[in-house]
């Protein structure tokens, strides 16, 4: 009996060993005649790539492209000045609202070809009616904004240069007016259509009902700054607010977060597996690249066209070498390049398990073919403000090539506790008091809640962030 058991075990071992040895011959490239490898060849074939695409969730790698036109905040103006509701992307109804406004805007931009400049009063009047206000973190080049809205060409472009805020004012299910604001020169534009299918009014009612029933996770807004004349200087007061800064009635609830560097741990340990994936994303072969460590502990990878550095605190800096084009990511053109940067960033973050949700914070084009785009991490619908680096991701592309890419590599986990920001009015008073002594008039451009990340690893808390106009 013992002998039979031994034979059975031996036979099993031999079968496993046989499978292992056979797989070595099949998979190892140099064991094929003339270096030919069937599997390697099939990986590059069209059929294989189609099959792999079926199994690969391509949408997961296009998160940022889809988020490009997602407003940082949507404010529902119910028509009643004391009932305005502010939603960010963490709210349950945000996606539905965003989809509705997106499709209404896309429809509008595809049909309406003329924008008319209007007085600020008309814009303010729209905000007191039953409307939806979309507040973007970035000031979009109008041409680029419309491309993201699915419109290739439009005469709207000739009048409007930049778009930073949008108001949708539905008059019926078919008639709608869209107002656009250029924050940089404070000009306002209007387009209207009587043939624009939309469900904006219904969604406004839905959000209002939801807020009344739950009373919970939305943020009530009493007024905009212009309602209270905070956008006008009075007496000795030299601090004025942008007219569109919302004034909140209650403190904001949030959950603290904890940051982590996915590549280099606090004890200096490098996650070699993720590092290899990161290098692969930049087209760098980890086996052949010249690599060294600087005195500061920064890892440096030098290849023919670019240098990639990762500092111990997780700051990644990819720079094309002078006289070279950098890494090819797309066709030429601002739209293609911004999309490609967003896709590249998503692919990188997915590969190294970094924070996947990012929102565009600025898009600039120098008019000579170079486009710069910056992103902020978003957690729980709130942006993460980088006090040291300025932005989480910054990329510069030209001629379809990535020339510069920086990112503070971070992953965030949400803590299981709820905290509240300071009172809005207290934060506003502190901001005004902080600038009272200045000789010139100080304009507060933006005031919003966001997490603060100073680049260190550990717990991060939300607070009011105030941007002052230069």
């Amino acid at each position: 009996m013992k002998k039979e058991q031994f034979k059975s075990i031996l036979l099993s071992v031999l079968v496993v060993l046989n499978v292992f040895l056979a797989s070595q011959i099949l998979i190892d490239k140099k064991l094929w005649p003339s270096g030919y490898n069937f599997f390697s060849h099939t990986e590059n074939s069209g059929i294989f790539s189609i099959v792999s695409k079926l199994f690969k969730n391509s949408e997961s790698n296009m998160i940022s492209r889809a988020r490009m036109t997602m407003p940082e905040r949507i404010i529902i103006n119910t028509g009643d000045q004391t009932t305005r509701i502010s939603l960010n992307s963490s709210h349950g109804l945000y996606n539905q609202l965003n989809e509705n406004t997106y499709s209404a805007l896309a429809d509008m931009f595809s049909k309406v070809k003329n924008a008319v400049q209007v007085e600020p009063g008309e814009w303010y009047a729209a905000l007191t009616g039953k409307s939806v206000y979309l507040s973007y973190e970035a000031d979009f080049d109008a041409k680029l904004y419309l491309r993201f809205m699915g419109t290739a060409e439009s005469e709207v472009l000739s009048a409007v240069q930049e778009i930073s805020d949008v108001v949708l004012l539905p008059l019926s299910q078919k008639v709608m007016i869209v107002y656009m604001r250029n924050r940089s020169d404070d000009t306002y534009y209007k387009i209207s259509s009587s043939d624009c299918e939309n469900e904006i009014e219904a969604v406004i009612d839905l959000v209002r009902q939801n807020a009344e029933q739950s009373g919970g996770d939305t943020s009530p807004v009493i007024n905009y700054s212009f309602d209270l004349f905070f956008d006008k200087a009075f007496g000795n007061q030299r601090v004025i607010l942008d007219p569109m800064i919302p004034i909140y009635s209650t403190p904001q609830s949030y959950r603290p977060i904890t940051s982590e560097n996915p590549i280099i741990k606090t004890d200096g340990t490098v996650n070699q597996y993720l590092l290899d994936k990161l290098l692969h994303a930049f087209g760098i072969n980890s086996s052949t690249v010249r690599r060294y460590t600087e005195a500061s502990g920064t890892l440096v990878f030098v290849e023919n066209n670019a240098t990639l550095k990762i500092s111990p605190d997780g700051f990644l800096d990819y720079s094309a070498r002078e006289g070279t084009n950098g890494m090819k990511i797309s066709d030429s053109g601002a739209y293609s390049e911004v999309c490609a940067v967003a896709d590249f960033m998503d692919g990188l973050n997915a590969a190294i398990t970094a924070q996947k949700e990012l929102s565009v914070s600025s898009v600039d084009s120098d008019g000579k073919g170079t486009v710069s785009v910056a992103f902020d991490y978003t957690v729980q619908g709130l942006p993460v403000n980088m006090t040291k680096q300025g932005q989480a991701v910054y990329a510069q592309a030209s001629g379809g090539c990535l020339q510069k890419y920086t990112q503070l590599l971070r992953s965030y986990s949400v803590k299981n506790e709820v905290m509240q920001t300071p009172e809005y009015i207290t934060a506003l008073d502190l901001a005004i008091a902080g600038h009272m002594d200045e000789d010139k008039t100080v304009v507060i451009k933006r005031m919003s809640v966001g997490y603060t990340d100073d680049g260190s690893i550990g717990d991060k808390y939300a607070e009011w962030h105030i941007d002052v106009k230069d």
Partner: protein
Amino acid sequence: MSWSRAKTILIIFFVALNAVLLANILYTDNKASVISADVISSTVQVLEKNNIYINAGIIPKKAPSVKSDEVTNVIDEYRAFAEKMLGADGVGDMGNNVFDSTGGTVEFSADSFVCIPKNPWYSELTQNVNEKNAAKTAVNILKKSGFDMSSSEAVAENRGNGEFLVKFTKTLRKRPIFDSALFVLMSGEGVKKIYGSWFEYDGLVSGKDIPTKNVTGVLIDFINSPLRPQGEVRIEDLEFGCAVNENTQYHKTVMPVPVWRITLNNGQSVYMDARKVQ
């Protein structure tokens, strides 16, 4: 036929099959790393057509395998290293990467240093120094100064006037780091100067080998290399090693790049990158 007998037959069959597969793997693996005589002969012909002459016999017939080794600079930080060489007390920063104390001066440039004692050091070790024991004496001196001198090759040179210069070259898996060397200049009075750069083995960066070109591929690259001298040249020697690029900037750690050193008849050495860029 009983199941017991069937198992015996299957065991014999799988033992034989596994033996064949294993032999095939070992044979093909070995064959893949060997450069055939035809390839060498063709390479020599191409080189000759381009006025480069080489004795086919000096071309290695086996492609080297290279591990992704990492080395650490003995200079962890300029000031800390200066204090290590001169003693912790009274070391002053003179600017421009120069550190000074009553014991001597240390000057840094990228990965290199020059340490000059104000009075010769370790005279008790060097009093009987001669051409035969110079290398061993220098090793003892460097060990006392905190250097790891394992895996290194030493060459001693008699400079006359009782002075000996010992050059150390670090080796990684018995292959030299071509562009890094440590020098000790001494006489019977003691050590007069220690200079150069030095790296110590740190471990593997990853389990993957660094893909390298065959030497024949490197020789073909040499034809159009900007490093190639004008006119007719003869290759006298070929040696495989690695380089850390020590002159450009400071490296705390570095993964040396595999290179082939081509020694020409005019005495010039040309270093060719051996990495296979994929």
